[in-house]
């Protein structure tokens, strides 16, 4: 067994035992924190598809998380209200609202990514970074002024989505559901990067000119990946909305895009699992530092700089490869 497999196995065991541990220690908050880490991990891993495999540096990934969250929040609001459209009512009263909400949230985020991606992909390099940021800011202000759904105040959800078999209102069930979503995403994504599509994408990300010279219409593949990543971020958003039972425009702010990027880089770009690890490190650091000082950012900042300067490939590869690099 390689170190990587060992590491993943260990992580899987730990994660699946976590709820039991949380109950044992009488600390249900641990579960909520862990769920949040899983969700952010999902969002970061979806960003990693863009950064690590497609070489598309998007500084607006929070937009898709936000759209997913808002789609879930808005649907939740309407599905719970009387007098909705008959078509929606069919599914709404069957106590499986999640079956509508989650796919629609993914769909909404994918659609947004498709449209925005089509425009953004006309540019490259620094311009791409900035235009993705601009679109995210545009959406941020759009949701701030979206009065019908709370505007800047955000939107509170009463309870979580309903799914068959699992009861998301139960934190343990919710945790396992998040874990399931994350693992499913990671499995599908790692299949994806080794599929024909993934191969061509990785090639395009590596050397676009060469790929075109071989006959690849690179724009289509990039747009498809942008859409997929957006949709996955939408799923994370929908989960996040369910987790905190609340959505607000703050989710679309560029700082969240920045934080997601930090998670990807911290964990290890282009590794899919790394960003999940990065999310855990970032969020735990935030929690941990917060316990010791009000001024946690004064420590977090330099830590990030040091991480960039000295852990060039992220923490996960560092962990997995151990001392091999020095040997």
């Amino acid at each position, binding site marked *: 067994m390689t170190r990587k497999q060992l590491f993943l196995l260990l992580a899987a065991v730990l994660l699946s035992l976590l709820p039991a541990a949380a109950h044992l220690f009488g600390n249900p908050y641990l579960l909520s924190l862990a769920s949040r880490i899983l969700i952010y991990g999902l969002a970061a891993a979806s960003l990693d598809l863009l950064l690590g495999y497609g070489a598309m540096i998007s500084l607006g990934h929070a937009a898709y998380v936000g759209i997913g969250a808002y789609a879930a929040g808005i649907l939740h609001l309407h599905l719970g209200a009387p007098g909705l459209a008959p078509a929606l009512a069919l599914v709404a009263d069957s106590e499986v609202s999640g079956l509508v909400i989650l796919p629609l949230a993914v769909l909404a985020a994918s659609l947004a990514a498709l449209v925005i991606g089509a425009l953004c992909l006309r540019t490259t390099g620094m311009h791409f970074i900035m235009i993705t940021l601009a679109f995210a800011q545009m959406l941020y202000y759009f949701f701030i002024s979206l009065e019908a759904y709370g505007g800047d105040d955000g939107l509170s959800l009463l309870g979580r989505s309903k799914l068959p078999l699992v009861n998301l209102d139960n934190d343990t069930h919710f945790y396992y559901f998040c874990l399931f979503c994350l693992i499913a995403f990671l499995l*599908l994504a790692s*299949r*994806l990067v*080794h*599929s*024909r*599509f*993934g*191969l*061509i994408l*990785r*090639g395009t990300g*590596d*050397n676009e*000119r*060469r*790929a*075109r*010279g*071989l*006959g*690849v*219409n*690179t724009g289509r*593949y990039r747009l*498809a990946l942008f859409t997929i990543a957006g949709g996955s971020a939408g799923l994370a958003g929908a989960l996040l909305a369910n987790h905190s039972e609340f959505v607000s425009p703050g989710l679309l702010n560029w700082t969240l895009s920045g934080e997601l990027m930090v998670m990807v880089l911290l964990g290890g770009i282009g590794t899919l699992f790394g960003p999940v690890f990065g999310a855990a490190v970032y969020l735990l650091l935030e929690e941990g530092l917060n316990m010791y000082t009000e001024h946690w950012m004064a420590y977090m900042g330099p830590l990030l700089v040091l991480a960039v300067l000295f852990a060039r490939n992220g923490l996960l590869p560092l962990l997995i490869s151990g001392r091999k690099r020095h040997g």
Partner: protein
Amino acid sequence: MAEALLDVTGLNKSFGALLATNDLSLSVRQGEVHALIGPNGAGKTTLVNQLSGDLIADSGRVVFRGQDITRLPAHHRARLGIARSFQITHIFENLTVAENLGLALLAGHGGNFHFFRHWRRAPRLTERLEEALTRFDLLQHRDQPAASLSHGEKRQLEVGMALVVDPQLLILDEPMAGLGPGGTVELTRIIRRLKGQLTILLVEHDMDVVFSLADRITVLVYGHDIATGTPAEIRGNALVRQAYLGEEG
């Protein structure tokens, strides 16, 4: 006279005030190895870029197998059967050798939106990949990242990627650049074996290579073709000697 596979007439391309390609005409016949020589800055790479579609000419015509391709984008031209290698090695450094070749094999087809099945399980790919790995002597490196290959092996891989799709026209832009003596010999052998199977446009500085491989040679100076002919004709051409070797008179 054999039929022309590629016909370039009156091509012009300028960058600002610099005329990189100046009323250039060139005809590459089906099945020949056609070498393109000229001093540095003569506009060879600019021409290659216009043939491959990485640059679009300002004016003039590029006709390939009877079809006007002057304004087609690069990936379109690739699908028509024009393959190229680059002056500076252009391979997918982060992919493995097998992935590089696999990508080359798959790239020409439109239907690559397969998201879950491993790329290696694309129809009829395995045999072709094995064959390519064997043919370009890369079998022992198949799962190595391309970045870890030696310079010569990278060159070999690059040429392999261009060849693996059985192109009609192969454009080799200074394939010998930076190769050690062993590498040059090896690559010359590979190209010689290709002779007759497909048409090759060879841009090269190494005169040994050019004269040993080429059927015909075109000499570029200042973006213009000053002479075309067999190696013997070129060697005897006073204009060429003066322009290229700088021998005055």
